[in-house]
């Protein structure tokens, strides 16, 4: 497949390990479909951002005591890759502008990393769900 042909991958998952595996598998399938190598920098940066948002969603994205699934879509079209993740966790508006913390901090880098790696990181609260949109030109 050339880079001009569209690609779409859809999945729904609940568990952390399962979800992370699906996210990386989806990027690997896109990489293969595009004929790019594992060292392809734009795709590697996108996968890094996807890992950050994905792990946040999988860790915090469901109300305590429930097993609400996360919905995931990965699309590539017209030279642009876009991932969407929908979860049922609490709103996260207050975390969105978090800056990169000091070197000694062991936490709190994920969103700052994702913002700087993507062309666009979208978030909106839609009723009871969080909708994330990750966009990068490849």
């Amino acid at each position: 497949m050339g880079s001009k042909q569209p690609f779409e991958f859809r999945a729904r998952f609940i568990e952390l390990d399962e979800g992370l595996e699906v996210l990386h598998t989806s990027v690997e399938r896109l990489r293969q479909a595009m004929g790019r190598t594992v060292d392809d920098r734009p795709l590697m940066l996108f996968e890094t951002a996807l890992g950050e948002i994905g792990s946040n969603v999988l860790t915090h994205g469901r109300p305590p005591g429930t097993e609400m699934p996360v919905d995931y879509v990965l699309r590539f079209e017209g030279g642009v890759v876009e991932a969407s993740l929908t979860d049922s966790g609490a709103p996260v508006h207050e975390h969105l502008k978090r800056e990169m913390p000091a070197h000694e901090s062991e936490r709190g880098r994920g969103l700052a990393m994702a913002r700087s790696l993507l062309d666009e990181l979208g978030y909106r609260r839609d009723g009871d769900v969080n909708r994330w949109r990750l966009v990068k030109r490849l």
Partner: protein
Amino acid sequence: MALDVQTRQTDGGIIVLAATGRLDVAGAPALKDAVSEAAKNGSSRVVIDMEGISFVDSTGLGSVISALKQIRGSQGDLRLAAPNQQVRVVLELTTLDRVFPYYATVEEALTGF
């Protein structure tokens, strides 16, 4: 993919932790456990062999920072060896490459340590 960590000690008494898999939110506890075990045994010089690490995220990076604090807290030091391109990008993006000296190979990391 769970992170697998193999521990060995060099003739010079340096602990080498060879990690394989993804050092992410799921894999970070395995590295923390291995470092805690090394620190408990009094090891003050630790090299993390990252050749087998395919991907790192911010939680995985947090476990490396935790390891550094733990080892430096007992007057020791930590070096990273053989990070792949993705790991190097994450270290540079977070400017943690200024905190962690990383080496192209384990042999280079062991030299003069």
